[in-house]
């Protein structure tokens, strides 16, 4: 039995290791190819986090949902509507930034609650429920305003533009001037979310329940866990994280428009899958999803540095990586199942 668990852990650790190695390989490839253009400067590295903070948070939320064996394709639209709501409340309704931010979090939680209720208590397929949620949120965005609203609110802009300098790192730019790299508030939020989620999944009763429900709902029920409330909680958490991702996204874009963050959910799912989360449930890590999101970032950065390739190459490369990872997972699963079967014989 102990052997079994050990081999299982070894398996998931292996997938995570592949993800991290891939990230490092891509990073060093970029560093070698574009050494003359400061690819290795700490700021370029930190920009990965700055431009993908929203994706990291969304991917973490998605990881929770995927571990329970569900799916949420509404988050792109939720991010869109959150940006629009923030812009509308602050610019058209002249609310204070704090109130607007609190209200969008409440919206996210309620949104997650409704979806979670429909999924866990009425047993409607998650795909259909969140498809409805996706349409609803996107339509709501258009209802609020079909024009772009940009945010002028001073408090919000201060939050968005507040650079946090990392004074302990020093580097020289190409003119030889001493620089300190900086990050924005969004990066801090994203990293805190990753850390807390990691602790929740690994060390709390709730986290264990999430894995148990995703692994096998029937056994989880027999173990005395309540799959319904566990799932409901996961969807509420995911709703909150989607609104948080929306807030972070808005810190970057400082405005709302109808088409914002369209297709973002697929990026989040791709990040989670590249990070080793299985869509069948029961397996997944937030650290993997973090690296999945960073891999997308590094591909984008390399394509930007390259300069002549068009942006749709990002999608093609990500699809190729996705393909590589799912086939790797599939092969890996077969090997593991065979090994487990052998263990049973002994």
């Amino acid at each position: 039995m102990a052997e079994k668990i050990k081999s299982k852990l070894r398996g998931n650790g292996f997938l995570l290791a592949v993800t991290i190695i891939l990230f490092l390989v891509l990073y060093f490839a970029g560093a070698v190819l574009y050494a003359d253009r400061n690819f290795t400067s700490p700021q370029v590295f930190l920009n990965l986090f700055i431009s993908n903070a929203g994706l990291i948070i969304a991917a973490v939320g998605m990881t929770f949902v995927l571990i329970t064996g569900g799916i949420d394709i509404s988050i792109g639209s939720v991010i869109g509507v959150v940006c629009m709501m923030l812009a509308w409340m602050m610019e058209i309704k002249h609310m204070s930034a704090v109130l607007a931010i609190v209200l969008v979090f409440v919206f996210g939680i309620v949104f997650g609650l409704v979806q979670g209720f429909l999924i866990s208590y009425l047993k409607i397929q998650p795909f259909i429920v969140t498809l409805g949620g996706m349409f609803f949120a996107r339509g709501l965005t258009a209802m609020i305003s079909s024009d772009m609203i940009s945010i002028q609110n001073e408090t919000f802009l201060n939050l968005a533009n507040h650079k946090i300098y990392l004074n302990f790192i020093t580097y020289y730019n190409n003119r030889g001037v001493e620089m300190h790299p900086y990050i924005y508030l969004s990066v801090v939020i994203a990293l805190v979310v990753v850390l807390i989620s990691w602790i929740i999944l690994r060390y709390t009763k709730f986290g264990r329940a999430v894995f148990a429900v995703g692994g096998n709902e029937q056994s989880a029920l027999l173990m005395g866990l309540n799959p319904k409330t566990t799932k409901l909680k996961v969807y509420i958490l995911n709703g909150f994280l989607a609104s948080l991702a929306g807030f972070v996204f808005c810190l970057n874009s400082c405005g709302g428009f109808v088409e914002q963050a369209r297709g973002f959910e697929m990026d989040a799912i791709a990040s989670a899958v590249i990070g080793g989360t299985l869509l069948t449930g029961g397996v997944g890590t937030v650290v993997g999803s973090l690296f999945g999101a960073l891999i997308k970032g590094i591909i984008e950065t390399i394509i930007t540095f390259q300069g002549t390739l068009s942006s749709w190459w990002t999608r093609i490369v990500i699809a190729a990586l996705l393909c590589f990872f799912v086939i790797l997972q599939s092969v890996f699963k077969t090997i593991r199942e065979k090994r487990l079967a052998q263990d049973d014989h002994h």
Partner: protein
Amino acid sequence: MNEKLKKLTTHRLFWPLVCLALVLLFNFIKSPSFFKISINNGVLYGYLIDILNRSSELIVLAVGMTLCVASSAGTDISVGAIMALSGAATVYCLGTGDTYAIPWILAILIGLVVSVLCGMWNGFLVAKMKIQPMVATLILFTAGRGMAQLITGGNILYIKEPSFKYLGGFLPHIPIPTPILVAIVVVVLSTLFLNKTATKLYVESVGINPKASRLFGLNSTRIIFITYAACGLCAGIAGMIATSRIASIDANNVGNLMELDAILAVALGGNSLGGGKFSVAGSVIGAVTIQALSTTLYAMSVTGDQLPLYKAIVVIVIVTLQSPEFKRYVNRWKAKRTVKADGKKVA
């Protein structure tokens, strides 16, 4: 009488049909001329024809999607991208000159072959590599449009030859829009093929339990593979119609979000997304319902942007009403009420 009624209401197509009827009835009350069909310039004209015409791509997609869902309990989310890809291939082959660069039949065949290849790739990943359908098709969903953009060079390509519009418009001297005819042909052929051979039974049995079906002597892998290839073919046909309608290819927008509507059509048609038993007719009804709903909302001057909001509400209401769990809650609540009422009577 009661028995008959019960039989009717428990028929699997009953609720989907009721939903469609409700949408149509609502339209009829709003504008009594809704069901009127007239002939203008030798072609049929009217709301109903318009709805059927516009829903034909969705109907074709829904037929393919039904098969995927039934055999593998998963959804193919790449159909919209496949539409764009096959459309791009066809338009690229025909060229943008004043006449076709190659015979049109060949170009359409190339487009369909591309779509079948895409479907086979999905099928290979799902059936052979045992990857969850949504992830497997996520690959083409992500890459498909990019590849279509590569073919078109990132431009919108236009076809000048007027006969290219036949497929998405009207054939000369035929009053019915061609897309409706194509949809009818696809539905009739697939229904005949499924029902007159044992294929439907095979697909359902694989969907209910692939392992048991294998032990029973069915090649589950091959059946799942074929359903995905068929779904690719359907996406290709839909892509041809969509491309011909506007006589151009815009790789970013052809079939955008169509995969979601197709999945919705399957679910609205009373098919379980968990696989197994299925009804192509149900999916067709679902597809028409979605289009009827969209047309209705457009007629009520809802903008295209806002449309999803209403769609979402209708979808959630419909799936909630269809959910067995919801019916159980309602029944329990009813039972409680009758017990209480009886209790009062006794007292």
